[in-house]
């Protein structure tokens, strides 16, 4: 970390803060903050790592390939990419998927939520609240808690491996269903694991509820999937905090991506406004659809009927872990093996759109197919791209409230603010430069 003298403009007071390796956030980024007359003029999250061109190299590929290809976008939420891709391609082809397949997908997705949320809660986020630089240091003071986090992640991994074939980048998902559906006997050991995990998940909510949270309120519009029968994970229509909503087919009419000069990642606006997807949005819009156990845990943790404090997102994630474990147990109990494991899907010239709720927010896929089944174009809108505007606004607000802090404290606050949103900027090295220019 270092401070800089003004360069060139005598009227400008310039501070430059550098974090050479921002831990506990995925991706490469720099934050530039401009302050004029004591107020924040701009806060830009500069994502400078190269674009990855997934949408470009999907062109010309067979329509059955995206579930496996796009799952490689992320090692933490590959199921989200697989499910959104399947939803879009099945919709394009007019295929109706067996209810039992949908429930098996939901079970697989629960595994991803449990593993991803446990990773973020215990290894990326909790150290911020406990004064620890990382989870190794956290293990020194709170060994039992870290063991609990590992056990939860392992429970999530067990679902991914049993249903998806392996815990990272599962290989069992295909357009129309699965290559092989597990038997009830295959799932029985999972139920044992998950019953123990439920206690760990409830204890996790109690643990994080005891942290201290700054009193902060995020005013951005919230957007999440909605399903009439269940807390939406693997499909649904779209609802917003303004009381609006629209079908997935209209996504492109409402959500517009655009380039900004300071980032290689696209930003997005919802009907021209910044918005946030992810746990805060899901909880605020649909908390009444959580299971009774999850709702009880939320109430005991002091969550109200909405949560707009990004620092408290760790509590919401913990509640969602309770729900995902509970839901996985329910799905295993009610499991009927889909036979055949996949519905045959025949390609046709069409456009298909699919969504699902990745652990960190709504993930949208759109594919244009030719009659021969080749992909003519693809568009993928990941949650972190959608959330970038809201994250920048949140950063500007936090910095504006704390301009009196010294460089180190201000930088730490910025890092915490970013981690509150669990961004998955990329699958590369970690880097953040923060530069504050005061005029």
């Amino acid at each position, binding site marked *: 970390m270092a401070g800089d003298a003004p360069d060139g403009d005598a009227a400008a007071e310039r501070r430059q803060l550098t974090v050479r390796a921002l831990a506990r956030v995925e991706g490469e980024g720099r934050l530039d903050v401009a302050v004029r007359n004591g107020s924040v003029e701009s806060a830009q999250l500069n994502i400078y790592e190269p674009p990855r061109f997934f949408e470009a190299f999907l062109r010309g590929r067979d329509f059955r390939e995206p579930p496996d290809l796009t799952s490689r976008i992320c090692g933490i939420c590959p199921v989200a990419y697989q499910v959104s891709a399947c939803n879009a391609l099945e919709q394009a082809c007019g295929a109706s998927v067996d209810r039992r397949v949908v429930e098996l997908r939901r079970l697989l997705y629960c595994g991803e939520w449990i593993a991803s949320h446990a990773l973020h809660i215990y290894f990326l986020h909790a150290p911020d609240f406990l004064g620890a630089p990382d989870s190794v240091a956290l293990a020194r003071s709170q060994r039992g808690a870290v063991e609990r986090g*590992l056990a939860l*992640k392992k429970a999530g991994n067990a679902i991914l491996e049993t249903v998806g074939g392996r*815990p990272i980048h599962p290989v069992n998902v295909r357009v129309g269903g699965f290559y092989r559906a597990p038997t009830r006997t295959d799932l029985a050991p999972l139920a044992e694991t998950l019953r123990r995990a439920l206690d760990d998940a409830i204890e996790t909510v109690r643990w994080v509820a005891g942290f201290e949270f700054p009193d902060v309120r995020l005013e951005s519009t919230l957007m999440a999937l909605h399903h009439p029968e269940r807390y939406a994970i693997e499909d649904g229509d779209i609802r917003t905090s303004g009381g609006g909503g629209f079908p997935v087919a209209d996504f492109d009419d409402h959500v517009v991506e655009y380039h900004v000069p300071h980032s290689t990642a696209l930003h997005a606006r919802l009907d021209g406004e910044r918005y946030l997807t992810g746990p805060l949005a899901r909880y605020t819009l649909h908390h009444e659809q959580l299971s009774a156990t999850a709702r009880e845990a939320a109430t005991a943790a002091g969550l109200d009927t909405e949560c707009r404090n990004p620092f408290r997102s760790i509590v919401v994630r913990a509640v969602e872990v309770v729900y995902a474990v509970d839901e996985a147990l329910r799905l295993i109990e009610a499991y009927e093996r889909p036979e055949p494991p996949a519905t045959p899907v025949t390609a046709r010239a069409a456009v298909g759109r699919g969504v699902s709720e990745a652990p960190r927010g709504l993930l949208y896929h759109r594919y244009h197919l030719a009659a021969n089944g080749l992909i003519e174009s693809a568009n993928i809108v990941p949650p972190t791209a959608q959330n970038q505007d809201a994250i920048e606004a949140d950063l500007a607000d936090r910095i504006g409230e704390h301009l009196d802090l010294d460089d180190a404290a201000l930088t730490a606050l910025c890092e915490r603010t970013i981690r509150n949103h669990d961004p998955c900027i990329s699958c590369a090295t970690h880097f953040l430069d923060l530069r504050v220019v005061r005029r």
Partner: protein
Amino acid sequence: MGNEFRRDDGLGPAVIRALADRTPGGHRVDAVVAADAVDLLDAWSGADLAIVVDLAMGTPARAGRVRRATSAGVDAVGSIGGHSVDLFTTLELARELGRSPGALVVFTVEGADVRVGIGLSPPVARAVAEVVAAIDTELENWEISESARRRVPDPPGPWPAR
């Protein structure tokens, strides 16, 4: 460790296949392909000796060259993020949790090809037998040192000299 769908990165699984059903010296040997740090922690918790085999890519590299390292004197070089849990950070975490193995030996083999596909390059495929032999030697030496240790206790510490 490794991914057998990335050619030479399939080294770890190949070594495990070569070790299948062997119980050198009558000891129980568990062979596990680890997908992440959690798998490693589980695999080596309570073990007297853990041997990790992984591919190494470097510049300059000599494909097939086998190297041996131990945990002694190695500090964590990474940080715990979703995508970046390195072996020695995992070991550091294991130490804090009291789940580190009695001793850790790492064998790396320098690779030539980690493109998508199945099958090891010829120099890495040849190295599999060398690694298996090295593991046998490691177990024999460990047995000898354990016998000596039982006669003359080591000074206290988590990493007795080998």
